[in-house]
C-alpha cells in the first residue's frame, strides 16, 4: 500500500451508523487523517476527489437495481474493497424482506408502489463483486476499523479473527449469561470482534457480527429449545441483523422465524 492511501467511503442501503464509526474515532481521528488521504466521504467532507482509490470502504446492502451498477463501478476503481457492517456483509436487517412477498409488502408500505424501484431481496456486496476484507457488526467495531486502516497503511494483513464471541467473552472474564442466567446467547456461533459487548452488560449476544468461521447453530438451537425458549422465538433469534447469512438463515427458517405465509422469493436479487 502506498504511503498515504487514498480512501473513499461509500454508502448503499444502510443507516450510516457504520461509516460514522470513523468519525467516532475521536482520539485517533487526527492520526487517521494524517495517515490517509480521505478522498471521498460525503458524510464528513465536501471535497470530492475522483478515483481510482487505494481503499474503498463500502457500507450498505444491494437493494435497488442501480446499486448493482454502482457497486461494479466502485469495485473497478478500487484497489482494495472493504465491506463494513452487517448490511454490506450479509444484507442487514432489511434482508428480512427476502422471506416475504415483495410485491405485497410494497403495496402495504407505499401509496404508489409503481414509483418505487426496488429489488425483491437485500443482498451483501460480496454477492455482486469480489470483496477483499469484511468488517462485521451492527455497527462495526471502531477498534476493528482502526486495525484494518492501520494494516493497510503499514502494508500488512489485518487481524480479524473469525472465532466465536465466547472466546472474547471469557478473555474479558464476563459471567456467562447462558450458564448463569439461562439467557439465550448467540455468542457460541457469532463472529468475534465486538469484545463480547452484550454479555458484558448481562445480555445475550444478538449475533450482530454474523456467523463465526464454523458456526454450530443446530446444537445451540436445540439447547435453547431444551431450556424452554419457544421454537418461533428460537427462529427469530437467528433472523435479525444477519438474517440473510446462510447459516443463520437456515437455522432461523427451520424454527419458523418468519410469520409470512407467502413463499420466500427464489431469485437472488442479482
Amino acid at each position, binding site marked *: 500500500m502506498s504511503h498515504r492511501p487514498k480512501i473513499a467511503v461509500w454508502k448503499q442501503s444502510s443507516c450510516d451508523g457504520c461509516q460514522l464509526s470513523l468519525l467516532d474515532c475521536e482520539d485517533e481521528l487526527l492520526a487517521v487523517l494524517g*495517515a490517509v488521504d480521505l478522498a471521498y466521504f460525503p458524510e464528513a467532507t465536501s471535497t470530492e476527489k475522483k478515483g481510482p482509490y487505494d481503499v474503498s470502504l463500502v457500507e450498505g446492502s444491494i437493494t435497488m437495481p442501480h446499486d448493482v451498477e454502482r457497486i461494479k463501478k466502485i469495485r473497478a476503481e478500487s484497489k482494495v474493497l472493504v465491506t463494513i457492517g452487517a448490511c454490506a456483509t450479509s444484507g442487514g436487517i432489511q434482508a428480512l424482506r427476502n422471506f416475504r412477498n415483495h410485491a405485497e409488502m410494497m403495496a402495504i408500505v407505499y401509496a404508489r408502489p409503481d414509483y418505487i424501484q426496488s429489488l425483491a431481496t437485500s443482498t451483501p456486496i460480496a454477492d455482486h463483486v469480489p470483496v477483499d476484507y469484511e468488517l462485521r457488526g451492527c455497527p462495526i467495531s471502531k477498534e476493528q476499523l482502526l486495525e484494518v486502516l492501520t494494516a493497510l497503511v503499514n502494508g500488512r494483513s489485518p487481524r480479524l479473527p473469525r472465532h466465536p464471541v465466547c472466546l472474547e467473552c471469557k478473555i474479558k472474564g464476563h*459471567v456467562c449469561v447462558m450458564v448463569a442466567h439461562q439467557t439465550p446467547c448467540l*455468542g457460541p456461533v457469532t463472529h468475534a470482534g465486538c469484545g463480547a459487548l452484550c454479555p458484558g452488560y448481562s445480555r445475550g449476544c444478538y449475533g450482530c457480527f454474523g456467523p463465526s468461521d464454523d458456526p454450530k447453530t443446530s446444537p445451540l438451537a436445540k439447547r435453547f429449545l431444551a431450556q424452554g425458549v419457544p421454537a418461533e422465538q428460537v427462529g427469530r433469534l437467528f433472523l435479525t441483523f444477519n438474517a440473510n447469512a446462510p447459516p443463520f438463515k437456515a437455522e432461523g427458517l427451520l424454527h419458523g422465524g418468519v410469520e409470512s405465509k407467502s413463499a420466500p422469493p427464489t431469485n437472488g436479487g442479482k
Partner: protein
Amino acid sequence: MESHAPWQVGSKAILSVTGLGDLLGRLWAGGRQVVGPVVRDGAICLGPVRTIADLPKGLTDEHGPGTYRLKPRGDEALFGFTVGQHAFKRSILLPEVALVQLRRKGRDVEVEPATPKTQPLALLGVRACDAAALGIQDKVLCGGPYADSDYEARRADVLVIAVQCTNAASTCFCASMGTGPHLSNGFDLALTELLSPTHRFLVEVGSPAGATLANQLELTPVSEGDLSDAKTAEQAALTQMGRHLETAGLREKLQQNPDDSHWENVANRCLSCANCTMVCPTCFCTTMEDRTDLTGDIATRIRRYDSCFSEAFAYVHGGSVRPTVRARYRQWLTHKLSTWVDQFGSLGCVGCGRCITFCPVGIDITAEAKAVGAPARTG
C-alpha cells in the same frame, strides 16, 4: 499469641473470623494484592478481596451440566461454595498481555521487553483442585522447553491461602483424579471453615512464608474438638462429590480409539465454542498477535488465550489440521486425559468440573471419556 509462637510448617491453630480480616489487612498493607472469591453478576468470580465483607457470605453455588446458580445457604459461611467460572490462572497466565514492544527511533529499533511490573499476589480460597492445577501449569510453563518468562515473573511471588472444601458440587470429581478434596501440599496457609459452635477457621501452616504470616496473627491452639469438627466438615465434601471418572487404563483406551464412533456423537453436540478450555485451570494454549499503531512506529506483541477448539489454532500452511469438531474435541479430551501423561508426566485434568458447568450445552468430560471405546459399542 506470644505464648504459642513461633508457629512452624505443619502447625495447626485456630483463627477467628476477625482474625481473617486482620490477615487480609496485613496482606494488602504488605503490598500484596489479594485475589479471591467475590460475587459479580449473579456468580462467584475472582476479584480483589480487601475485607471479609467482599467475600460471598452465606452463599453457595449449584452446578449442573451447562447450568450454574447461586443460592442462599442460610448461614454465615464465607467459603460455602465450590469453584466458579474463573480459575486462578487468570492472575498468572494472563488472558491477554503485552510481551514486547518495538519502537522505531530514526533508523534504529528500540526493543522494550514489557517486563511485567508485577504486584506480589495472595490467592485466597484456592481449593485442592486449584492448587493441583497451579502445580500442573508450573510444570509446563516454568523452566523446561515451554518456559514462559512472563508466567515465571508473575508466579515468583504468589502466596497461596487455600481453603479445604467442606462441600462439593455435582460436577466435582477431584477424588477420581487424586487431587482432592483434601489438600495436603502446595499452599502457604490452608483454612478449614468451621461454623459451629462458633464460626472459626482451622489454619494449617504449609510453608516458611506461611509460618511468618501465622506468627503475625492472633492464633489460638487447636483442641481435639476442632480437629474432629474439621474432619466431619471435610467428610461432607467427599460425600457430596457428584461425579466419578475411572482413570485406570484411560490413557491407553483413548490412544487406542481415535476412530471410535463416539467422537462423532460428541461432535454433533459440541459448539466448538472454546468455553471449556477457557475455564479449565490447566489449559495453557495461547497465540501471539502483533499490533502496530497507525504510523507504524510502534509494534506490540500480545499473547492471548487461544484454544484447540478454534479453527485457526491448528492452521498451518494450506489449511487447518483439525478442520472438524470431531478432530478438535478428540484433541482436547485425548490431551487432557491421555497424551498429557506422555508429555508432562501426569494427567492434565484435576477434576474441578468447570468444563462441565460452563459448557453452554453441558457436555460432560466424565461421560464422554467413559463412552469412548466402551466395550458395549466399540466401532
